[in-house]
């Protein structure tokens, strides 16, 4: 038989779990943001992705 009614305990735990989830989500976002800043070092991040990207070609070659 499915349990339908909820004890107040469940409500409190749900709120705590949501808050903890928000903190963990925020932490992941922050680490991602730090990673982007550290890797880009002020420049935009681009890499080869199986198509020609002129923006990452060496300047000498790009001008030819």
């Amino acid at each position, binding site marked *: 038989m499915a*349990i339908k*009614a909820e*004890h107040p305990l469940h409500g409190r*735990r749900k*709120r*705590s779990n949501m808050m903890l989830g928000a903190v963990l989500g925020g932490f992941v976002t922050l680490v991602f943001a730090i990673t982007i800043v550290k890797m880009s070092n002020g420049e935009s991040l681009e890499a080869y992705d199986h198509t020609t990207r002129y923006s990452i070609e060496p300047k000498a070659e790009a001008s030819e």
Partner: protein
Amino acid sequence: MDNPVSDATANDYGQDSQFDDYFALLKPRVMSLVVFTAAVGLLVAPVGVNPVIGFASILFIALGAGASGALNMWWDADIDAIMKRTVKRPVPDGRVTPKNAMIVGLWLSVIAVGMLALTANFFAAGLLAFTIFFYAVVYTMWLKRWTPQNIVIGGASGAFPPMVGWAVATGGISVESVAMFMLIFIWTPPHFWALSLFMNDDYTRAGVPMLPVTHGTRVTRNNILGYTVLLFVVAIATAFTGIGGPIYLATAVILNVLFLIGAMKLWKRTDAQADDDNFAAERKFFRLSLVYLFASFAALLGDAVLRGFDLLNTWPVVI
């Protein structure tokens, strides 16, 4: 049966710790002061920091402060349960077990120091680790129950955050960061001794050797005045370091004159007078001390803004 989950289920789990209880374990009010002073330390530094790195660093410094708060609550649960001011804290109130408080404190310390090392630099992370160690071990476990100089020496732990903030930006220590450290370090004794004057009964019952408990209120009042005079000198001297300026100097003069007047009033008062008005002057001095610290650091920030616009090139930096 209306409710398939009986009350016995909740009781079986004992006190069900909530997120808010763990958050309270981190001493959020102390954390807010740490965030502010560390942020000022970072922002007044002559080296610019990427906003994301700066924000994250301040967050990890605050987390480190919270971790040391949790370790403090774990170790001091017995005396917190005796004092009115602290009896509602999560551990003495039974909302968080001492073991969980310790685990949270230790893990958050590791996360805060590790993340600061990765985000900013190893020097700032080392300084944060030392701050946590100083507060949790040197102050909480050793000094607090042993000597009336507990908050004088232990005050260093509250004075480190702006130095950590400065280290995030510069990677080191300099006269300016030491000046910010000294400002909080010398401010701490009058701040806490004013509190201990009107919380004397609490500290006496808990057996914490605060100065009024061990040496009486007369000696405490003398010491408050002495440290306030010393603070005056340190605060004015800070105005002539690389982080000082006209806004800070004007603010420091006003605040220190008010603080000195307050300390003089406390010094002249007797215990009978304090009892008569329920420590009105002592409470007022304590509130003023909070304003003092906030306004002093806000003024440093104000001068940093002026410096950013090249408006303080002629300001005399003599220290």
